[in-house]
């Protein structure tokens, strides 16, 4: 847990990490592009099972008509915990990092692309993968310069391989998210000033996702990485990213200016320019929702993630030309998990787990808590979806997620159906006759939506015949350190899973018998084999197929029973003159690079 309020911000209001992310979850078609970036060789694979189309209409890329200039003024719910993303795993720190620093790779965005579906170059213009996927050789851009700021040793100079190596060493030394890289990477070498070689401990085909993740490895100058520059201060926060950090007034605002040295180009109305199109970004510190609403209505901020109950009133209030974009929720899995290594656990029998799944009225919960029909009648068509057993439905995971309602789910789809009678039959077949079990959960951290949905689900379990003793514990003192981290629970538990940055982490860490987040203590050799198989599959489409197989298997066994907390979309409103906000969507923390660099303001 980064900070207590992290969960409330992440789950409840959609205000923070996804602020001003443009949104129609249109075609759900991901494009797969693995291999040598920059050679135009990516192939587009069908996305299958992606997000639902929404009523907002297909977004248009209007870059050709863009006018340079302007400052995009949006809000943040809190000060960044640190300007150095290696010193805090908080989303606020990662978000700042994304402005200033490059990654080796990033996610490509565009009107036809689902978020996080296609990797492209960032600091690296190309990479090669050895046949056994254990060696990844990255070629750095030859023209990537540091921002024009700071001492001569950094100011405007070219990035080189030593910077990357030093940054990686610093990342390993300090970053709380380093575990996945420590487990995966054996060594990093720099044969020349433009080449960085990552040698892996094992074949790991999704390594490019780790290199593109906006929550992991940020490339700084060697001066920053070694402490010569104080990267915790504005003056020392110097990178090769698209935005130069200009000033920070704590609890007031952060200002960034466009980096004129950035490599990515686009053709706008006046000819070819380097991105960003905007002159700058301003994040105004604004933790309170009512204040956000007031400022947006008054025209003082340019984007606002409106809560569904307020949609009608707020949209009535604002300019009729205010773009409204429906967005899926964040990629987050709420689930039941089971202590399968406890011999006396009634949930050891998969029929009991299936019965629990069939006792949940998922559509009913979404309808009630999301007010879907009511909003649809008022003209707001929100995307909704069911999480799969081990891959959540939400922004960022559309390419990998298998829709449990789809035919592709196969026979395992039956265990998602809301069928109390069938659930009772399963329990009877499993000789479950009402033995009481402990259900551990928490109610002090995840926000009111989670708490209310927990309360709504409990009678559903009872209706199916389950008899439980609810142990709702304080998150900080009990649930997180004991249940969540050490798996000190007896029978079943319910809560959110850690929002992993990549689907590979969902696969290995949650499902493999040696996974550190294997909360259900699964020990399934068939599943282990599939998890390892997807790790070495370099073909995106084939890897997707394996991950679909995994979801079918896990669904059939219901090793995790997914709930639907927050599995409905929301609308983000924009000032009428903001452009391109729907066409360049991304997820996680990379918005400032993958989205805002394409935004422009259509006003005199």
């Amino acid at each position, binding site marked *: 847990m*980064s900070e207590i309020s992290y969960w409330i911000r992440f789950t409840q209001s959609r205000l923070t990490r996804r602020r001003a992310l443009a949104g129609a979850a249109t075609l759900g078609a991901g494009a797969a592009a693995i291999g040598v970036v920059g050679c135009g060789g990516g192939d587009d694979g069908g996305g299958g099972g992606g997000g639902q189309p929404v009523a907002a209409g297909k977004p248009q890329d209007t870059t050709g008509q863009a006018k340079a200039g302007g400052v995009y003024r949006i809000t943040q719910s809190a000060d960044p915990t640190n300007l150095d993303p290696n010193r805090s795993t908080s989303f606020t720190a990662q978000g700042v990092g994304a402005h200033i620093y490059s990654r080796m790779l990033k996610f490509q965005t565009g009107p036809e692309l689902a978020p996080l579906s296609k990797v492209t170059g960032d600091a690296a213009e190309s990479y090669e993968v050895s046949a056994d996927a254990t060696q990844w050789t990255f070629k750095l851009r030859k023209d990537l310069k540091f921002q024009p700021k700071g001492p001569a040793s950094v100011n405007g100079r070219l990035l080189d391989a030593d910077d990357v190596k030093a940054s990686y060493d610093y990342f390993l030394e300090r970053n709380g998210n380093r575990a996945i890289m420590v487990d995966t990477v054996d060594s990093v070498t720099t044969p020349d000033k433009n080449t960085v070689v990552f040698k892996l401990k094992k074949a790991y085909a999704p390594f490019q996702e780790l290199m593109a993740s906006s929550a992991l490895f940020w490339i700084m100058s060697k001066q920053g990485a070694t402490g010569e520059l104080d990267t915790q201060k504005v003056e020392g926060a110097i990178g090769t990213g698209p935005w130069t950090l200009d000033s920070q007034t704590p609890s*007031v605002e952060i200002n960034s200016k466009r980096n004129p040295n950035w490599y990515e180009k686009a053709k706008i109305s006046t000819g070819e320019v380097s991105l960003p199109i905007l002159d700058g970004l301003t994040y105004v510190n604004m933790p309170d929702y009512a204040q956000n609403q*007031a400022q947006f*209505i008054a025209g003082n901020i340019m984007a606002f993630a409106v809560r569904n109950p307020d949609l009608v009133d707020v949209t009535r209030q604002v300019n009729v030309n205010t773009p409204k974009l429906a967005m899926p929720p964040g990629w987050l899995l709420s689930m039941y998990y089971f202590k399968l290594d406890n011999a006396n656990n009634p949930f050891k029998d998969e029929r009991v787990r299936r019965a629990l799944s069939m006792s949940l009225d998922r559509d009913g919960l979404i309808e009630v808590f999301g007010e879907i029909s009511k909003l649809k009648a008022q003209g707001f068509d929100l995307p909704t979806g069911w999480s799969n057993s081990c891959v959540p439905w939400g922004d960022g995971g559309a390419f990998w997620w298998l829709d449990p309602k789809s035919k592709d789910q196969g026979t395992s789809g039956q265990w998602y159906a809301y069928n109390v009678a069938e659930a009772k039959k399963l329990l009877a077949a499993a000789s479950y006759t009402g033995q009481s079990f402990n259900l551990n959960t928490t109610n002090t951290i995840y926000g009111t939506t989670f708490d209310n949905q927990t309360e709504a689900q409990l009678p559903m379990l009872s209706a199916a015949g389950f008899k439980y003793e609810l142990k709702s514990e304080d998150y900080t003192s*009990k649930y997180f*350190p004991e249940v969540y981290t050490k798996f000190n629970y007896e029978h079943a538990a319910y809560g959110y899973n850690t929002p992993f940055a990549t689907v590979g982490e969902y696969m290995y860490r949650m499902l493999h018998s040696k996974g550190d987040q294997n909360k259900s203590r699964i020990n399934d050799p068939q599943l282990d084999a599939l998890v390892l198989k997807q790790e070495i599959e370099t073909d995106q489409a084939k890897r997707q197929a394996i991950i679909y197989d995994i979801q079918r298997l896990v669904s059939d066994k219901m090793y995790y029973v997914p709930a639907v907390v927050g599995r409905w979309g929301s609308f983000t409103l924009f000032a009428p003159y903001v452009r391109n906000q729907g066409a360049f969507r991304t997820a996680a923390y990379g918005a400032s690079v993958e989205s805002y660099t394409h935004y422009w303001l259509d006003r005199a």
Partner: protein
Amino acid sequence: MQKYVARRLLLMIPTLLGITIIVFMMTRLTPQDTVDILVGEVGYQDLALKEQLRKEFGLTNSIPKQYVTWLGEILTGDFGSSLYSGRPVTEELKNRVPVSVELGALALAFSISLGIPVGILSAVYQDKWIDYATRGVSVLLLAIPSFWLALIVLVVGSRQFSWAPPSKYFTPWQNLGENIYILLVPAIILGLGLSGTKMRLMRTQMLEVLRQDYIRTARAKGLTELSVLVRHASKNALIPVVTIIGLQVTVLIAGSVILETIFLIPGVGQYVVNAAQRRDYPIIQSLTLIIATVIVVSNLLVDISYAYLDPRVKYS
């Protein structure tokens, strides 16, 4: 009087020391420390990193040693740095404390200028419609939470009038007009809540004082009613009210935390809330000490002011 003040100042030292010990212990005893929260959920099981960070932050030392080290730094004016952002606490407080003080002072001034005259009015017109109206208003002001009122002001203001308060804070030296404007609404909201108590207490005290013999004497001597009220009655009725004002400093600090967050005021409020959530020990400890000092000093000032308000009060 001087001996009294000196004695009280000396007594402040063990009081504040006791507070520092309690706060220090309480922050260390809460589940999860700074490092647990800093590394996040993903890094929670990275025991090597956590150990490294704890060593760096001095958290592997014994509690008494940590306390003594911190106390020593405080005595030299070093309040430490945030374990999260690395920014010195002193630097942050230098910017934030004046903001909170200004907000608090404005709120207090408003509450006094509203509460006391209304209380007097209510007493003078006892059992008339003015009295009933003001008593009703004072109860309402006591009952309404300031954060609720703040949200109502924002929502109604934006929905009905497309109004929003300023979104950027300016210091008085940067722009006095904007500075007052951003503080005005939260100061009034805070002040309204505080004025309810003053109204009621002032009314009660005035009614008691107005019944005293010396007031009858003053009237018999031919003094104008205004003179009787202002020069004689109010001054004596104020003594308990001044006590309340001293106690309300604590309420003010608590109330301003919420309103600073809502109205985008970069004071101490947001700073301390974030620090508490993150277990940012240097900030929590330093701020608690400062707030405790403010409360102790304000109580002392209240006690000293009695001697001026009531000549019967003598300190030795």
